[in-house]
């Protein structure tokens, strides 16, 4: 399954090559043209129709990189993107794309004071242990400041529909975009798939891709938070896993273009596609970078709900993901038919 391979692939912001290479290989038979740009975006083009549509998904995941190497051979870390410090202690990680195993240790519970036991371990006290004896041994492995550090999470099925893996934000979006490109042709559209970099550090790749492509309309495909779990008030769940793809209402980075938003809702209803909305303003997506390019680009974000995003392992429901594929597909058909012009 493509989502499995994408989730298992490693790529923190700025070092997305493994994800890029995988997508390039998968999509080559299905697209007319492929290229990369100065920030590492992978752009693919399918078709040559009069309306230009850009579908965006980001290839980077949140994670860590090596800040410094201690004399004793431990790695001090820096965060890439936003992460909750509470998920770190006792975690297994991979260092570099070679996936050299390391662990994020924590002082034994037995040795902690009552005070320490109640507190979250501050990030600057965390470190990764490779088992190396000293700095020289670490360096011999090819590890240096800036080397990426990933959660050592392997994709698996919890059930037929519910899967677990790392980096569903935004490998879910990449999977949706790839599926759309692989399944259908849209001769009335020039369809650009922009697999962009560095969303997690500031919506960076998307801005460049949108400037270059200057599409008539765009959709950003994301993995977003979902908290329909025990103890959470229904108003605070953001999205509900299992209730379909989520069409954004508004977030910190952008207010969706009203016409694009209305068309997505219309198309979902007309085709009996179960959908929901992302019911929180906090957080930003590539729409924020795309909408401001040149003289403005109409754009909206469609997300696959994921529980526990931005941690070492998230859950998603494949029905939601394929629902997103279906929604985007019907939106493109509508654009192609001329039913909708941004």
């Amino acid at each position, binding site marked *: 399954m493509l989502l499995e391979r994408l989730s298992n692939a490693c790529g923190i912001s700025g070092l997305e090559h493994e994800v890029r290479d995988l997508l390039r290989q998968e999509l080559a038979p299905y697209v007319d043209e492929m290229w990369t740009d100065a920030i590492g975006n992978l752009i693919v083009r399918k078709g040559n129709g009069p309306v230009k549509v850009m579908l965006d998904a980001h290839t980077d995941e949140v994670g860590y990189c090596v800040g410094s190497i201690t004399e004793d051979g431990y790695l001090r870390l820096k965060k890439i993107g936003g992460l909750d410090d509470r998920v770190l202690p006792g975690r297994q990680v991979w260092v570099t794309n070679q996936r050299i195993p390391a662990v994020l240790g924590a002082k034994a519970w037995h040795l902690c004071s009552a005070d320490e036991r109640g507190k979250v371990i501050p990030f600057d006290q965390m470190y990764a242990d490779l088992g190396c004896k000293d700095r020289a041994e670490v360096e011999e492995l090819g590890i240096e400041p800036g080397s990426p550090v990933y959660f050592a999470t392997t994709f698996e099925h919890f059930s037929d529909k519910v899967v677990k893996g790392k980096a569903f934000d935004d490998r879910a979006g990449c999977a949706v975009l790839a599926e759309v490109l692989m399944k259908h042709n849209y001769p009335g559209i020039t369809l650009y798939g922009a697999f962009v970099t560095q969303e997690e550090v500031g919506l960076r790749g998307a801005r460049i891709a949108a400037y270059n492509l200057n599409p008539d309309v765009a959709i950003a495909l994301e993995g977003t938070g979902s908290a329909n779990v025990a103890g959470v008030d*229904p*108003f605070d769940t953001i999205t509900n896993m299992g209730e379909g793809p989520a069409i954004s*209402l*508004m977030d910190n980075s952008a*207010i*969706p*273009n*009203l016409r694009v*938003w209305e068309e997505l809702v219309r198309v979902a209803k007309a085709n009996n596609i179960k959908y929901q*909305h992302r*019911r*929180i*303003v906090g957080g930003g997506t590539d729409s924020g970078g795309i*909408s*401001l*390019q*040149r*003289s*403005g*680009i*109409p754009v909206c974000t469609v997300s696959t709900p994921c529980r526990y995003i931005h941690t070492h392992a998230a859950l998603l429901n494949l029905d939601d993901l394929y629902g997103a594929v279906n929604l985007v597909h019907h939106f493109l058909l509508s654009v192609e038919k001329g039913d909708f012009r941004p």
Partner: protein
Amino acid sequence: MKTSMLEQLHQLTAVWGPAGREQKIARTLGEAIEPFVDEVRTDGFGNLVAIKRGTGGSKRVMLTAHMDTIGAIAMNISDKGLIHLEPVGGLKAWNAMGQRVVWGSGAVGVLQHESIDDGKEISFKKLWCDIGATSREEALENIRLGEMCTVVGELQQMGDFVTGPGLDDRAGCAVLLEVAGHLEACAHEVCFVFTSQGETGPRGGGTAAFGVNPDMAFVVDVAAAGDVPRAPRVDVKLGKGPAIKLKDGNYMGHVGMIDLVRRVAEEHAIPLQTEIAAGSNDAQVVSVAGQGVPTAVIDIPARYRGTAAEMVSLPDMHGAADLLLKLLGSDLDME
């Protein structure tokens, strides 16, 4: 027949248009300015651009005011039919409490809060909009998630002052319309830009400037006045004229433009205050568009911004319009 600026302001403040939902106000502004310009268009971001060609092949000048207001967006609807919201732009919960609102669909409602013991508890999380629906289904007949509402209130005149919601920045829009209506033949090409999402971001100004590609720009917005108790420490008062902004939270005034504005104000004896403030407006995003746009901010002093009863002085608005007309009548050369 030209409309007076006060009539214009009455009309503009009555039109619904929070950030991202400016279609109606854009239409109103487009119709109002169309007789005075050569071209009206909307760009990909939703900014309204109205261009009056120049006679003398001189400079291209952009005048901008944002056409959106603050408001709130529906995020959740309870089983009882109450709508839970998040703010759009800087609408504060304590200014929203107890206010009547109107939704994009036309439905009306009231914003109310849980009963409070301590003012510190006031937050949007405890606020809701009641549109008189008794169930979720009934509410959904009138409102959908993502719908926005704004506080309503009729503009009232109090001598030289006017008060009402949305003067930020419909007052700036009215000034631009006034300038358009009185601008006769001008050597410069003048682009009147009414931006989208000035209250969230601000966002529209940069995309507008990219498309217009001006040689220089003047942003007309409202500035917090410092002449009431516990106001920000700003030396700006109502009734003492428009203010030239030297600095705010994310913009440093262009020295050449500031000198130009001051020179013209002095030449024509237009009282001009000086403003150094916090906050932000379109000037920052306009000034970094393309190769750079020297930008000045001419602010209309305002009290009680963000409330249902903002207040500005009509003579200050006239001063701003007059200053812009005199600027456009000059060669606009910076030293």
